C-alpha cells in the first residue's frame, strides 16, 4: 500500500534517524548506546524507507549488499583486535589516541570494534528484512 504522506516523511526521517543512530553509536562509550543499538536504529531507518517506498527503492538507496555490510563489520572487528599487536601489546588490548577529537571524543580500537558491531547489526537486520520483503513480493 503506497502512502504519499509516509513516503514524503520517510525521506526526511531517514537522514535524521541515521544521524541519531550515529549519535547513539558514539554515546555508547560511557553511557547507554553503542554499536548494537546504533545499528538497530540505522536498520530501522532503512526499514521505514522500505515500508514507504518498496523493496526496490530501498535496495537502490542502500547500494551495498547487506551481506557485504556483515562482512565489513566482522572485518573491522578483526582489524581492531590486531592493532594492539603492532604496539607490542597483547592481543585485543585497547589502544587509545592521546588527544580527544572534537565531536567524536576519544578514539581507539574499541571504537573500531564497535563500528564493526554497528555494521554487522545493520547488515544482519537488513538482510532479514529484505528477505522477508522479497518473499512478500513473490
Amino acid at each position, binding site marked *: 500500500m503506497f502512502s504519499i504522506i509516509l513516503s514524503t516523511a520517510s525521506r526526511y526521517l531517514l537522514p535524521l534517524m541515521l544521524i541519531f543512530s550515529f549519535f547513539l553509536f558514539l554515546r555508547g562509550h560511557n553511557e547507554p548506546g553503542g554499536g548494537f543499538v546504533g545499528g538497530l536504529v540505522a536498520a530501522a531507518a532503512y526499514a521505514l524507507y522500505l515500508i514507504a517506498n518498496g523493496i526496490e527503492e530501498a535496495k537502490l538507496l542502500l547500494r551495498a549488499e547487506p551481506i*557485504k555490510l556483515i*562482512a565489513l563489520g*566482522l*572485518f573491522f572487528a*578483526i582489524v581492531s583486535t590486531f592493532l594492539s*599487536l603492532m604496539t607490542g601489546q597483547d*592481543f*585485543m588490548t585497547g589502544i587509545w589516541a592521546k588527544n580527544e577529537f572534537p565531536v567524536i571524543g576519544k578514539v581507539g580500537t574499541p571504537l573500531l570494534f564497535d563500528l564493526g558491531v554497528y555494521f554487522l547489526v545493520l547488515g544482519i537486520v537488513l538482510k532479514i528484512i529484505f528477505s522477508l520483503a522479497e518473499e512478500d513480493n513473490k
Partner: protein
Amino acid sequence: MNLIIVLPIIVPLLFAVIMLFFWKNIKAHKILNVIASICSLAVAIILISNVNTLGILALQVGSWQAPFGISIVADLLTSIMVLITSVIGLATAIYSLGSMDEQREKFFYYPLLQFLLMGINGAFLTGDIFNLYVWFEVMLISSFVLLALGGKREQLEGAIKYVTLNLLSSAIFLAAVGILYGIVGTLNMADVARKIPFVEEKELVTVVSFLFMVAFGIKAAVFPLFFWLPASYHTPPIAVSAIFAGLLTKVGVYALIRVFTLIFIQDTNFTHTVLLVIAGFTMLTGVLGAASQNDMRKILSFHIISQIGYMIMGLALFSPLAIAGAIFYIIHHIIVKTNLFLVSGVVDKMKGSFNLKKIGGLYRYYPLLGLLFLIPALSLAGIPPLSGFWAKFVVIKAGLEIDQALIVIVALVVGILTLFSMTKIWNEAFWKDDPKGNENKIIDSFSAIKLSKKVLMFSPIIILALITIIIGFNAEPFFNFANNAASQLLNPSEYISKVLGL
C-alpha cells in the same frame, strides 16, 4: 608473544569473512576454504610443538589480568584437539569439493564450515567457563544452519530435535555456570579450581557438578541423553555428517574431561562412579541400538554413542593410564568415525542408497573401496594392530588395574558387538550379491561424476585410513603424547599457576 594461541580461532574467522566479501563467487569459496584449512593445520602444528616444548601457554585477552579477563589457554589436551580438528577440517574441505551440491554452496556452506571450526577451536582453547558457553553457542548456531541447509523434510525434522535438545542443554549449562559463579565468585576455570576446595557447602558443589554433567552429557550424547544424535546425524549431506560425527560430540567429551579433572575433583568417589555407570550404559545402548538398524549412517551414528562410552569410561576410572586412554581414544575415534562416514557417502554415490537391504556387491567392482572401509571399520571394532585396538587396550588395562571388572566386561562385550555391526555392513554392502540381481552395476550418476571429483572424494578417505594405520603401527609416540596430556590434567597446579600467573 602468545599470538599463536588465538590463531586457531582467528584463522577460520578471517577466511570466513573474506568468503563473505566474495559471497557470489563459489569458486573463490572453494579455494579459500581449502587454503583456510591448510593454514589452520599449519597453525595447529606450530601450537602443539610450542606447547610440547614450552609447557602450558596462556594468553590474557585484552591484557585484562586473570581472573578478571578472559584467558585463552593451551595445554597438551587442547592442542591435540585443535590439531585433530584441523585435520578433520581439511579432510572435509577436500571431500566437500567433490561431493557438495551447488545449492548448498550458494547458501554459504563454506563460510559456515569455517565458523563451525572457529567455534570448536574456541571451545577447546578457552580458559573461562562462561566463555566456554559462548563458544558452544557459536558452534551450535553454525551447526544448526549446516544441519538444516537444504531444507528437506527429514532434515528439518532432525534439525528440530537437535536444536531443541541442544538449547535445553545450553540452558542447563548457563544455569550451572550461574550457580557456580554464585558459589565461588569467579568464572576463570583455573581460579575456580583454586577456590573450590575451600567452599563450605560441599553438597552444593556436587549438585553443580551434576548440572554440568547433564549439560555436557547432552552434547556428548551419553546415556540417557543421546536421543537427538541418531535422530539427526543421518539427515544432512555426508560431508556435514562426517564433521559432526567426528567433532561435535567430542567437544562435549572434552568439556567433561576438562571440568571433571580440573574443577570437580573433591568428591570423585561419587561423581566419577556415576560417570562410570553412565559410561557402561552408553556403550551398551549405543551398540545395541546400532544392531537393529539397516541404514549405514544410522548404524554409524549409534556407534558414535557407544564409542563415547569408552571415552567417558577412561575419564571415570580417573587414573593416569585411564585418562591417557580416553585421550588416545578421542584421537583414534575422530579419525576413524569421520572416515567411516565419508566411505558411506561414497557408497551412497555408487549405489544410490544408504539402506543395506537395497545395496550389495560393491567389493566385486570396487575392491579398493572395500579395503578403505575395512581399515576404519576394523579399527573401530578394535582389531589389532589398528589404532582402535590400542585405544581399547589402554582403557581396559586401566580398568583392570583398579579392579573394575564389571565395566571391563561391558567394554569387551561392546567391542565384540561393534565387530558384529561392522561385519554386517561389510556383508550387506560389499560382499553379498546385489539384491535385484540384474543391477550388478554402479549407478549411472556415479559413472557420470568427473574423475577429478572422484579423486577429491577418495583422497581424504585414503589419507585418514593412512593416519589410522600409522597410529596403529606406531602407537607409542601418540600414546606418549596422550600420557603427557593426562599427567598435565591430573596435576592441575601447572595449569592454575600458568593461567593466573602465580
